[in-house]
C-alpha cells in the first residue's frame, strides 16, 4: 500500500538524519574554538618557537581534557615562519582568512611581530601573549588587538641597570650593550638607555654598543667595538640570540674580557647554557616568568600539564611562558557568555581587570593596560643550569 511505504521511508529517513546529527555533535566545527600561531619552528629561533608552542598546547590540552571552555574544545593551528618577517605576513593572512582563527597566540620574535601587528589591527584579530618584549607591541595608548603577558625588554634591561647600579655598584658609564642589529636589539638598547638616563647618564653617544647581523655569528666586530671603549665596561647587557651571544661571551673570555654578562629572556636560557658550557658560569639571564621549578600554583599546574602532554618535553622558561599565556586566554574565554567572536575575546581579555593566575602576584589587563605583567625574575647559569637568583647576589 502506498501510504504504508511512504510512512516506512520517512521513518527510516528521520532516524538516519537523527543519527547524523548526533554523530556530528562532537566534531561539529561550530563547537570548537580555533586559535592560531605563526612562529619559528625552524631556523635560529626554533627552540624558542617550539617551546612556546608546547606551553600553549599544554594549557589547551589541559582545558580540553576538562571539557573545553564554554562547552567548546580548543584547537591550535601553528604555521612556521622561521623567524623571518617576510614569512610571517602570509602566515597571518592564512590563519585569519583560511583557518578563521578567533585569536593569535604566542608568536615568537620582534621583527616577525612588527610584521604581524598591522595585519591584526586591520583584520581585528587579537595577537595575544607574543613572545617579544619590543615596544612596538606596547604603545601608548595600546593597540586594541595587541595584548601581552610578558614584561617588555625595557622592563628587563631597566631592571638590569637598576640592579647593576644599585646592587653591583657599577656606574652607568661602565655598562655596555651588545645587541642584534634589528628591532629586537634596538628595543632592548632603548629600554636600557632610558634606565641609564634615570641613573644619571649624561650622553648616549659615549655608550659602548656593539652589534651583530641577525642570523649570523659575526660577533667579532661588535666585541671589538665594546672592547675599544674609552671606559672598559664592567657589565655588558646583551640583546641577541643564544648562538651569537654564546660566541660573544666565549670570544670575550678568550680575549681576556670578563665583565658581567646579562641577557634578556629572549636569548633562550637553556640553549645558551648548553652552548656556553663552562664559559657560561655566572652569566645572568632575566626572565619574565618565575622559575619553572618554583612552588607557585601556576608552576605546579604547568609542570603537570606539560607532563600530561607526553613526549619528553622538559620544562623551560619558554614553554612556561606559553602555558601562562594560554591560561590567561582561557580564563578570558570562560568569561564569554554567547558564541565567542573575535571581538568578544578582546572584550573578555580587557575585562579581566586585576586578576591572579597563580603567579604569586596580581596581574592586570584592561582597555588601557595591555601588558598583564611587568615583573622581571633574574636567573643565573651555574654549572650549566639556569637557576633562580636575586639581584642582591650582585653585591659581591
Amino acid at each position, binding site marked *: 500500500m502506498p501510504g504504508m511505504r511512504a510512512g516506512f521511508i520517512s521513518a527510516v529517513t528521520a532516524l538516519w538524519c537523527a543519527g547524523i546529527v548526533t554523530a556530528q555533535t562532537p566534531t561539529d566545527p561550530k563547537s570548537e574554538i580555533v586559535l592560531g600561531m605563526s612562529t619559528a619552528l625552524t631556523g635560529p629561533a626554533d627552540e624558542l618557537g617550539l617551546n612556546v608552542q608546547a606551553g600553549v598546547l599544554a594549557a589547551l590540552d589541559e582545558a580540553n581534557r576538562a571539557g573545553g571552555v564554554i562547552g567548546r574544545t580548543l584547537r591550535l593551528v601553528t604555521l612556521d615562519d622561521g623567524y623571518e618577517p617576510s614569512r610571517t605576513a602570509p602566515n597571518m593572512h592564512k590563519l585569519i582568512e583560511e583557518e578563521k582563527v578567533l585569536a593569535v597566540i604566542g608568536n615568537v620574535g620582534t621583527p616577525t611581530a612588527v610584521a604581524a601587528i598591522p595585519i591584526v589591527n586591520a583584520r581585528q584579530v587579537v595577537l595575544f601573549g607574543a613572545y617579544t618584549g619590543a615596544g612596538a607591541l606596547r604603545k601608548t595608548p595600546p593597540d586594541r588587538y595587541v595584548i601581552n603577558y610578558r614584561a617588555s625588554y625595557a622592563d628587563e634591561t631597566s631592571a638590569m641597570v637598576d640592579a647593576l647600579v644599585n646592587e653591583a655598584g657599577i656606574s652607568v658609564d661602565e655598562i655596555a650593550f651588545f645587541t642584534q642589529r634589528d628591532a629586537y636589539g634596538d628595543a632592548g638598547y632603548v629600554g636600557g638607555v632610558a634606565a641609564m638616563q634615570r641613573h644619571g647618564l649624561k650622553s648616549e653617544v659615549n655608550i659602548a654598543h656593539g652589534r651583530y*647581523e641577525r642570523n*649570523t655569528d*659575526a*660577533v*667579532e*666586530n*661588535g*666585541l*671589538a*667595538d665594546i*672592547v*675599544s671603549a674609552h671606559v672598559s665596561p664592567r657589565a655588558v647587557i646583551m640583546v641577541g640570540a643564544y648562538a651569537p651571544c654564546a660566541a660573544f661571551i666565549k*670570544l670575550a673570555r678568550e*680575549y*681576556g674580557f670578563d665583565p658581567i654578562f646579562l641577557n634578556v629572556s629572549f636569548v633562550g636560557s637553556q640553549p645558551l647554557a648548553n652552548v656556553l658550557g663552562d664559559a657560561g658560569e655566572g652569566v645572568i639571564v632575566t626572565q619574565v616568568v618565575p622559575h619553572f621549578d618554583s612552588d607557585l600554583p601556576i608552576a605546579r599546574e604547568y609542570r603537570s600539564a606539560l607532563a600530561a602532554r607526553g613526549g619528553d618535553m622538559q620544562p623551560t622558561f619558554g614553554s612556561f611562558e606559553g602555558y601562562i599565556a594560554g591560561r590567561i586566554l582561557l580564563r578570558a574565554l570562560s568569561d564569554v557568555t554567547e558564541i565567542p567572536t573575535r571581538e568578544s575575546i578582546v572584550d573578555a581579555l580587557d575585562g579581566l581587570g586585576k586578576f591572579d593566575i597563580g603567579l604569586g602576584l596580581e596581574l592586570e589587563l584592561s582597555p588601557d593596560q595591555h601588558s598583564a605583567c611587568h615583573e622581571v625574575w633574574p636567573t643565573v647559569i651555574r654549572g650549566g643550569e639556569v637557576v633562580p637568583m636575586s639581584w642582591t647576589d650582585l653585591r659581591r
Partner: protein
Amino acid sequence: MRNNKHRDKQIIQRLVWILAAVGLSAGAIMLGMEHRALTKITEYRNHTQAALSKASESFQALRAEREVVVRGIETHFAEEHRDVSASIRKPDSLVPLMARCKADLSELSAYEGETNGAVANMEQAIAALLGIHTRLVQWECDYIALSAQVLQASKRVDQELAELKSEAHKLEGRKRLQEAMSLKRFHNSAEDEQAEIAISFVKEQEATLGASTLVLELSDLALQVERLRSEEHVDHLVSLKDNEMRQTLRRLRDAAARVDTAGVVDLTLMVDNAQDAIFGDGSRDDPDHQTLMVGVGGLYQHYRKQLLLQSTSAALQKSVIACVENFTEAEHGLGSMLGNAIVHDANRAQHIMRAAWRDALLAGVLVAVAFLVLTWKIAGLGEAAEAQLNAKNHALEATMEQLQIATHDAEAASRSKSDFLANMSHEIRTPMTAILGFTDVLRSTADDQISVAQRKDAIETIERNGTYLLQIINDILDISKIEAGKLDVQNIRTPLVPVIAEICSLMKVRADLKNLPFSLAYTESIPECIHTDPIRLKQILVNLIGNAVKFTESGSVKLVVGFDSSDAESKIHFDVIDTGPGMTRAQLDKLFKPFTQVDTSATRSFGGTGLGLAISRRLAMMLGGSLTVASEPGKGSRFRITVSTGPLDGIRMLDNPLEATSIKAEPAPAKKDTVLQLNCRILLAEDGVDNQRLIAHVLRKAGADVTVVENGKLAVEAALGSAEDYPGDSALLPFDVILMDMQMPVMDGYQATQVLRERGYTGPIIALTAHAMIGDRERCIEAGCSDYDTKPIDRIGLIKKITSWLSKATSDAEHEPALHETAMS
C-alpha cells in the same frame, strides 16, 4: 401581372444562389492550390534556413573562440610573464570549430563559389595563428627557463658573497680585537715593552686595514652585482663586466691575498668562488684584451640571455597583432558572406510570400463576397417577414394610441362640457332672477304704490336683463354650435369697404358716448371684395371693437386694416388697437376661455357675457384665419383678426380704401319708436300662446292683418282655405305671408309646408324656428319655406323680412295688383 413578377423574382433568386455557389467553389479551389504551392516553398525554404542558421551558429562559435584566444594573448602581454599554459588558450580549439563551420557552409550549395574563398582565407588565418601561438609558447618556455637559471645563479652569488662578507667581517673584527688587546697591553705594560707592542700594534692596524679594505671591496662588488641584476640594456652589461667588476674583483683578490687569516680560511678561494658564481665556472681575467673572460654558466651569462630574449618580445607582440588582424579580416569576409546569403534568402522568401498572399487575398475576397451574398439573401428573407411583423405591430400600437387619445379627449370634452354647463346655468339664472323679480314687483304693486319713474325703471331693468339673457343664450347657442361643429359660416363675396364702414359707424357711436376718439386706417391696398361670411365677420369686429371701447377710459381706439398676400392663402387682417389698461401674461392666458373675463369685477363694471372672445376666436378660425392678441399692462392691447380672402381672381384692388369708407355717426335707431308699416294679411302658425300674442301684437301694431292658428293642420287648411280650387293663383289666397313655427303638435311646420307646397301653394312661407343649428335652415328650405327667422323674434328684423317678401310678391304679382288690395279688406 402578379404571377409574372413572382416568377421573375424566383429566377433572380435562383441565379443569385448559383452565383454564390460558384464563387464559393472557385475561391475554395484557389485557396487549395495556393496552400499546396506555399507548403512546397516553405519546405524548400526551411531547408535553406536551417542550413543558414547552422552555418551562422558555427560561425558565431568560431568567432567567440577566436575572441577568447586573442584576449588571452593580449592579457598575457599586458601582465607579467606567467605560466603560459594558463594564460594563452590554445588556438587548437579553433580548428574543429572551423571544420564544423566549413561543413555547415558546404550545405549552402547555392553559395559555393563565395564560401570557398572565405573559408580558404579563414583556414589560412587559423594556421597562422597556430604558428604564432607555437612561437609564443616557445618564447615563454625559454624565458621561464632562463629566469630560473638567473634565479639560481643569483642565489649562488648571494650565498658566496654573504659567506665572503661574513668571513671578512669576522676577520676585521678579530683584527680589531687584536688591536684593542695590544692597546690594552700597551697601557698596562712597562715602557720598554711598549715600543714592541707599539710596533706589533701598527702591524695589527695594517692587518685591520687590510681586512677593512676587503670589506669595502666586497661592498663594492655587492653593489655592482645589484646593478648587473637590474641592468636593462645588454650593451651596458659588457661595460659593467669589463670595466668595473673586473677591476673590483682584482682588487678584492689582492686584498684577500694580503690579509692573513692564519690559515683558518682561504679567502682567495672564496673570491674565486664568488667570481665563478657571477661570471661562470672557469672565468678569468684577460689582461691582454682588457676583458673578463666568461666561463660556463654564471649569473652574468644567464642574465644576458634573459635580456636578449626580452628584447625580442616586442617584435613577437607585433607579429601576434598582425596575425590577429589577418584573422579578424578573414572572419569578417566569412561573416559578410553569410550575411549576404541570409539577406538574399530572406528577399526571395519575402517575394514568394507576397505573391502567395496576393493570390490568397484574391481567393479570400471571392469567398467572402459569395459568403456575403448568401448571408444577405438569407437575412433578407428573414428580414421581410420580420418587417411585416413589425409593421403590423406598429399599426396595432398606433391604433392603441389613437384609442387612448380619443378616450382622453372624450373625457376632457365631457369635463369641459360639465364645466361649461355649470357656468352656463349660473349666467342664465342671474338675469332670470332679475327679470322675474321685477316682473313680480310690477305685478304685485298697485298703480298708486309705485311711481311712473319706478315703473319705468323696473321695466327697463326687466328689458335690460331680458336683452342680456338673450345675448347670453345667443352666445351660448353660438358657442355650443361651434363646439358641436354645427355652426356654419357662409362663404360669399363680401365687399369689404361697406362692411368696414358699417362697423365703424356703429362703433363710433359707442366711442362718442365715452368721448373716445375712434379712427380707421388702411396699411396697404386691399381687395375690393373677399370671400367670407359678412355676418360673422361683423360679429367678430363688433365684439372686439366693443370690448376695446368698453375697457378703454382714455386715449383712443383704432381699427387698422391690412392685406397680406405673402402666404399661399392671402389674408385680410384687422387690428383693433386700444389704449386701455392692457393685460398681463396671466390674464392673456385666460383670455379666450369661455366665461372668463379679464377681471371678475369687470363683469359688473363692464358687462358682457364672457363668451365673446371665445366665440370670436372660433369664428375667426372658421373664416380661415385666427385671432391673436398682444398687450402690455398700462399701455393697451392690440387684437388682430385674420380672415382668409378666398380666391382673388378678377378682384380689383383698392388703392385708396380710406377715401371710399364713409363713416357716419348714425344715431342708434330707437328701437321702440320705429313704426314700420305692414299692409298685408299674415297667417301665423304658432303653438305657443305667449308667442302667439306677442308676434300677433307686434304685427298688428305694424298694421298687418294677422290670423293665428295653433298647428300645421289648421295652417294648411287656413292657408289653402278657399284656394283649393285655385292652386296656382296667388291672388285668391287668403294670406300674403305665412309665418310658420316649425315646432308644432299635430302637424309640425315642415310637414305643413310640404303639404302646402305639394298642394301648389306658392306664397312666401317664412319659417320661425328656435333651432339655430346648421342644417335647420336647409331643412326649412327643403321643406318648402321661402325664408326663416330665428326665435326669439327680432321685431324689426321680422317686419323687414316680411316687407321684403311682400315687395317680391308685389313685383312678381304686378300682374295681379287686385289680389293685394283684396287681402287688405
